[in-house]
């Protein structure tokens, strides 16, 4: 436990020693802020138009601030996460392998799992900080409207679990190579595939439909954004995360056996 905490602290600090954390956080907030502004501006324009036009005003969903602002916002944030998370995770093991520091790290009295979980937790902490900054958007919505609090809270829970899954896969990709770019491309590519797995549902045989819709990352975030906490979704993200951490441990260990 102590070793886990030491590695966690060291990794967290090293995110701030280098400009990575600052760069990723800044870009993340700029882009999400831009999306938020546009979604919110569209919504307020529509509201003005609805004042003049009674038929438009009858379309309940259109003028529901939770449905038209909060939900799309979560969808957009998750896309930006897909693009930026591999950049946070790519160096975690690749850098250690390339510079050789892994040799010292693995000859210290630490277990592999303490190393992997420490790094995972540090990255998750950075991601949580990013999420905390985005709380500004729901706060602004709250000032100018009456959004439902439930879907906002569950939406954040969903983003958190999804972020954990992204990080876990990024770490696994990073244990496979000593090249950071390869690690980033690999995790981006595979996550993107999981993202889009739902697209082909309409073309495949019925037996595959349930599989594809289950493995698609988007389907599971949807219910969170709607305000539903489905244990199935949480289990999906937790499974994804644990599988990736297990694979990372095996990848680290395999180095010992490869001739």
């Amino acid at each position, binding site marked *: 436990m102590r070793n886990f905490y030491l590695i966690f602290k060291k990794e967290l600090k090293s995110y701030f020693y280098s400009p990575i954390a600052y760069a990723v956080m800044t870009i993340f907030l700029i882009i999400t802020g831009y999306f938020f502004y546009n979604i919110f501006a569209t919504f307020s324009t529509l509201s003005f138009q609805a004042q003049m036009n009674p038929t438009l005003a009858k379309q309940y969903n259109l003028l529901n601030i939770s449905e038209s602002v909060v939900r799309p916002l979560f969808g957009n944030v998750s896309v930006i996460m897909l693009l930026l998370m591999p950049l946070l995770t790519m160096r975690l093991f690749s850098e250690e392998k390339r510079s050789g520091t892994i040799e010292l790290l693995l000859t210290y009295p630490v277990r592999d799992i303490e190393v992997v979980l420490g790094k995972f937790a540090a990255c998750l902490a950075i991601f949580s900080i990013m999420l905390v900054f985005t709380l500004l958007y729901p706060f602004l919505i709250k000032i100018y409207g009456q959004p439902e609090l439930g879907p906002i809270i569950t939406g954040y829970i969903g983003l958190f679990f999804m972020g954990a899954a992204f990080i876990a896969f990024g770490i696994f990709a990073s244990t496979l190579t000593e090249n950071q770019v390869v690690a980033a491309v690999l995790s981006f590519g595979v996550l993107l595939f999981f993202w889009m797995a739902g697209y082909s549902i309409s073309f495949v045989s019925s037996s595959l439909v349930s599989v594809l819709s289950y493995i698609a990352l988007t389907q599971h975030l949807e219910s969170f954004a709607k305000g539903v906490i489905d244990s199935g979704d949480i289990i999906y993200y937790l499974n994804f995360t644990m599988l990736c951490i297990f694979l990372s441990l095996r990848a680290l260990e395999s*180095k010992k056996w490869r001739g």
Partner: protein
Amino acid sequence: MIEVENLTKTYGSYNALKGINFRVEKGEILGFLGPNGAGKTTTMRILTCFFPATSGKATVAGYDVFENSLEVKKRIGYLPENVPLYKDMEITDYLTFVGRIKGVSAKDIKTKVSKVMGDCGITHMAGKLIGELSKGYRQRVGLAQALINDPEVLILDEPTIGLDPKQIIEIRQLIKNLAGRHTVILSTHILPEVSMTCQRVVIINEGRVIAVDTPHNLTNQIQKAARIFFKIEGPAVNVVKELNKVKGVKMIEKKETSNGVTDYIVELEKGNENRKVLPELIIKNGWGLHEMRSVEMSLEDIFIKLVTEEKGVKT
């Protein structure tokens, strides 16, 4: 303290170690000599539990490196050859991190860090980023992280490489002071370093141990003849002719000439070292004696000798 039995390591089809055996007693400093690719680093990596051996057994402080690797790791300080450190960390932060992870308590860590920084001469660099340090200072930080928890066993892969002469002397003194309390294995190319710091030497080539002894015995055993270097002003042909007449002279090797002064290396038979006669002879002939000194056999010489002897036995 350290026992290595029949250790082998195979990388794919390449046999890096072909059955290595040696022991290191508690408090001893053992030198590990060998050319590049001899298997020094591989052996050290097995002892530090970085990867397991293909076959064979190695124990450190009574613990098997494979089965009880966590116990072994607690007792080892390791300095890898290229000194991989976190370049984006400050020295004090880094040493605190390593010390804590190696089991130094939060209470003691401050004193330990400042002690080890003093020992390695990096106190005045405390606030610097490791990435900003020169090679020599990085080497010292590497040594400091190996020493931080006062480990029973130190494994140092070429600890003095890349240091300036003054630093080399300091680091050697530091290592020498560790003897008794710590057991040290250090690898090196430099023979004087071994004779200055190590009590015993293991020479290894192509994955095999070819000699184990004290540095002194090794030199004596292998150096079958005394070699003396001369700088003589005079006609080279005559010099060689006259010197060859002296009893005990086995061979004369003529080196380069400049301004009429020629360098020679004279090999004398062991036990018949008529050193006194040679300068007398030179002066008697009216030549100028500019320099005379005995030539120690270098590691390269000993090494080449050992390797060729080994090949000779095989063929």
